[in-house]
């Protein structure tokens, strides 16, 4: 796995926001991971864990506080104008709220064609039209939709427009921030299937952020679990669900309701007590220590580091001791 080409290399990324009394809100506090070509990396975590901030900092929408992010070997926070321009063609985003992320007064055609025009991907008007229609069809919309205004569309259709817009410049990397959480259950499956088909068809690399673990598992090859600005576990999807190492991951997994009364009644739920501490003043040591059922003395003093506990299975937890490098 490790000989594959790394598209995105994130090292010790930090993003702090100034808070009251000279303190800092540590939204992302030292996160390290790589995304390989052609894979889907999912990030899960509860609200406030820093997953969206992490994603946005990784693709340069937000400035970083510390650490480095390399996209195909280039530091994305130190790009020239020209490099940045090329980067925006390579990396595209799909947002959570299909109502806020599309200008309601624009015609669908213009929304999709904008990227094509900016990057001069079409030689002439007819070519542009052909491209837009192809994109619409690919996203499951009709040619007739091109001339309509965005406000005429439902949430699911808007998300399709957002996907067509993102793919209009033929990117290799797609960043999806909770792309389906604003949609109804029956529509969610449509969009997930569409994203998975497109990924295969266009050989996309995807960075997928969501709070819904069952959806992340369905779509991702590898999953990172975040808690209070830190990544606590990172491994491939099936391993994470079959054999989680970090107690937080375990709690998160058992908290997911399963739509089956027998299985639901038969399994043991690990109900976490308390709530996520404030990211302004996070606990010393392991950030999960206060809520962890397997907490030991060391957890309150020393912060655990991410270690490769089993091949390709990383976790930051004292339960697994300390491996000397």
């Amino acid at each position, binding site marked *: 796995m490790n000989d594959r080409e790394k598209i995105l290399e994130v090292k010790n990324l930090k993003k702090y926001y100034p808070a009251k009394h000279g303190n800092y809100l540590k939204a992302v506090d030292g996160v390290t991971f790589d995304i390989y070509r052609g894979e889907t990396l999912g990030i899960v975590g*509860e*609200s406030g864990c820093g997953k969206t901030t992490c994603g946005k900092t990784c693709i340069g929408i937000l400035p970083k506080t510390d650490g480095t992010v390399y996209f195909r070997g280039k530091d994305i926070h130190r790009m020239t104008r020209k490099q940045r321009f090329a980067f925006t063609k390579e990396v595209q985003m799909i947002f959570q709220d299909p109502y806020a992320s599309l200008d309601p007064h624009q015609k669908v055609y213009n929304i999709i064609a904008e990227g094509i025009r900016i990057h001069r991907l079409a030689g002439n008007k007819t070519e542009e039209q052909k491209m837009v229609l192809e994109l619409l069809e690919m996203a499951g919309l009709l040619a007739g939709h091109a001339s309509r205004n965005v406000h005429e569309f*439902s949430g*699911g*259709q808007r998300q399709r427009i957002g996907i067509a817009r993102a793919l209009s410049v033929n990117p290799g990397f797609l960043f999806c921030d909770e792309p389906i959480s604003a949609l*109804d*259950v*029956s*529509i*969610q*499956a*449509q969009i*997930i*299937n569409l994203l*998975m088909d497109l990924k295969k068809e266009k050989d996309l690399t995807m960075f997928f952020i969501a*709070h819904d*673990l*069952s*959806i992340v*598992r*369905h779509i991702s090859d590898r999953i990172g679990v975040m808690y209070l600005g830190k990544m606590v576990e990172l491994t491939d*999807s*099936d391993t994470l*669900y079959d054999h989680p190492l970090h107690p937080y991951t375990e*709690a*998160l*997994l*058992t*908290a*997911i*309701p*399963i*739509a*089956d*009364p027998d*299985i*639901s*009644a038969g399994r043991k*739920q690990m*109900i*976490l*007590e308390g*709530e996520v501490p404030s990211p302004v003043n996070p606990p010393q040591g392991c950030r999960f220590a206060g809520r962890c059922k397997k907490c030991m003395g060391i957890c309150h003093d020393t912060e655990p580091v991410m270690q490769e506990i089993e091949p390709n299975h990383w976790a930051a937890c004292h339960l697994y001791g300390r491996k000397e490098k």
Partner: protein
Amino acid sequence: MGNLLEVRNLSVSFFTYESTVQAVRDISFDLAPGETTALVGESGCGKSVTSKSIMGLIKKPGKILEGSRIYFKGQCITDFTIKEWERFRGKNCSIIFQDALASLNPTMKIGRQIIEVLNNHDTGLSRDEKVKKAVEMLAMTGIADAAGCLEKYPHELSGGMRQRVMIAMALIGRPELLIADEPTTSLDVTVQAQILEQMKQLQQKLNMAILLVTHDLGIVADAANKIIIMYAGRIVEQGPAREIFYHPVHPYTKALLDSVPRIDRDRTKRLRAIEGNIPDMANPPKGCAFCGRCPEAMNICEEHAPVLRQIEGPHAAACWLNELHTIHGGTDA
């Protein structure tokens, strides 16, 4: 055992300048005392409007149509006066909503808001007794520092805590029915698990019935005895939870069950998407509302709406497929 609540031919429409939206169209169901019934459906299917009708909370331009009847322990509540409603709410039946922050008064301390509920009902308690009762109730919902919580404002609490406060407020009058309208939708999964567990415990302690309104079949599987599935303002299927999960009859119920990814299933399996969108309720289709998206739709589905018919025991569905075996010209409007 008599029913706690009986809803008969409930129809609710919203009369706007532009059109009349038929949010709920002629639904009937019963709730048994002490049981949890789940009302499941997507946004716009009329599940929240139904729950608000039971609490007398439908406001203009909405209107409960003529002929709709709701009975609470045999008493018809649809033509209650304002005074009667005030006595009913909180004491017989309470409701909690999805957004606890919007339901709480941001300028009032939690203690005052909870005690207000007791003040509204003639409890004959002294102030100290009321405070004691409020602390007891908050502690019962799992708030560690219940006495300290009374002195806090809603914005000082986290989402999970606010929802606990809402539950405490709803239950302090010891109602026989609690309507929980998407009680955990805005919460994280680990907090959701806490709240659901708490609700279950409280239900046993206080022996109340719960009407759980939700779109999430996962939380239903764990909590509900009975399930009612709504689509476009109508009940499409209802029955005991196990029947609905293991022997669903209506194509919509089946599709709904297959469209959510599950962590206990093979993840390479493609999800079943329900194509198309929900119909416009200002102009609902003449026949079955699901027929435009139904993989098994027949000609009759477009023309005539199926009625809810018994399948086995309390399990019923509104689908023409279901009638194929028995039908001999049984159409209806």
